[in-house]
């Protein structure tokens, strides 16, 4: 399998995930009618500085990421994941995919939200086991099924002794 271009250097990898982040920012800015001028004013930097950050994702820092997201009313998480592609032959998954999944899932804010949706069948409350539960759940992987599971498929609550 041919090497993915983000595998050439860390700088290229940063470019890719930085560009995905910037695309999220720009889509939100377009949706909310926030211009680069407004963003620059909010951040108390020049418009050319904003343009530089938005056009050079290879140079983006975590500080920029947090500040720019906050300036347009968004928050940031860093997500590590295993997509069975340890050599990165396919490239990183677009961050919007994770965002859309989270939104389709009902925007859970903590692990309780998962447990309400997928009650543990044993005393398996560690996140690793919770992940296994999600993998083994009888639900379809389709995001809509997560939102509206059929009651007959719902796992039973554990019975306390």
């Amino acid at each position, binding site marked *: 399998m*041919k090497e993915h*271009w983000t595998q050439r250097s860390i700088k290229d990898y940063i*470019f890719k995930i930085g560009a995905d982040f910037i*695309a999220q920012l720009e*889509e939100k800015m377009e949706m909310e009618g926030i211009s680069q001028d407004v963003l620059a004013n909010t951040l108390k930097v020049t418009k050319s500085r904003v343009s530089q950050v938005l*056009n050079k994702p*290879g140079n983006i820092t975590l500080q920029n990421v947090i500040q720019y997201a906050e300036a347009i009313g968004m928050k940031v998480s860093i997500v590590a994941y295993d997509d069975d592609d340890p050599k990165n032959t*396919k*490239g990183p998954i677009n961050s*919007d995919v994770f965002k859309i999944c989270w939104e389709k899932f009902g925007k859970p804010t903590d692990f309780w939200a998962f447990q309400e949706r997928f009650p543990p069948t044993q005393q398996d409350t560690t996140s690793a086991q919770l992940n296994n539960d999600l993998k083994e759940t009888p639900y379809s992987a389709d995001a809509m099924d997560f939102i509206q599971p059929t009651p007959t498929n719902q796992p039973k609550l554990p019975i306390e002794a």
Partner: protein
Amino acid sequence: MANTAKSNYNLEFITSKDHKKRALAFFISDDKKVNAKKSFNNLSRNTQNWFRIRFEAWRDGKINKNWFHGWDKSQYGGKYTNCFVFESKTTTDRFYGFLHHSKKYDLGYELCVLINHTQKREQKTDETYLKRVEKIRMVLDVHKSIYAYFKELI
């Protein structure tokens, strides 16, 4: 990346052709007007990366008309509904090509074949590039060459 010994046309895949929905490839030909691959290689790494992100975004099913788009039946009398363009974010570079259903038993599969690179000077699309792409798209041997990569017979 030779296709067949007889073919004058070849593809160089930018993304894997084994993707379930879409792939992109540069069209390789002796025709000097076919310059996408050569021009891409001459772009700065920054501009190349921007294009790679847009190529992969299209492959992954993202919708963003500022990044890439085609032309519908209401434009140019419907002559270029198979043509497609990718636009740079930071420069006036454009890559023109056409969409091709390369798997006869999977009509949902699309290959974007990139033909030309240009620097866009005006807001309006220069029809010359669309004509050039369409002219190549109409050549039977071009289709044969593409299908050969997917082991499809024309």
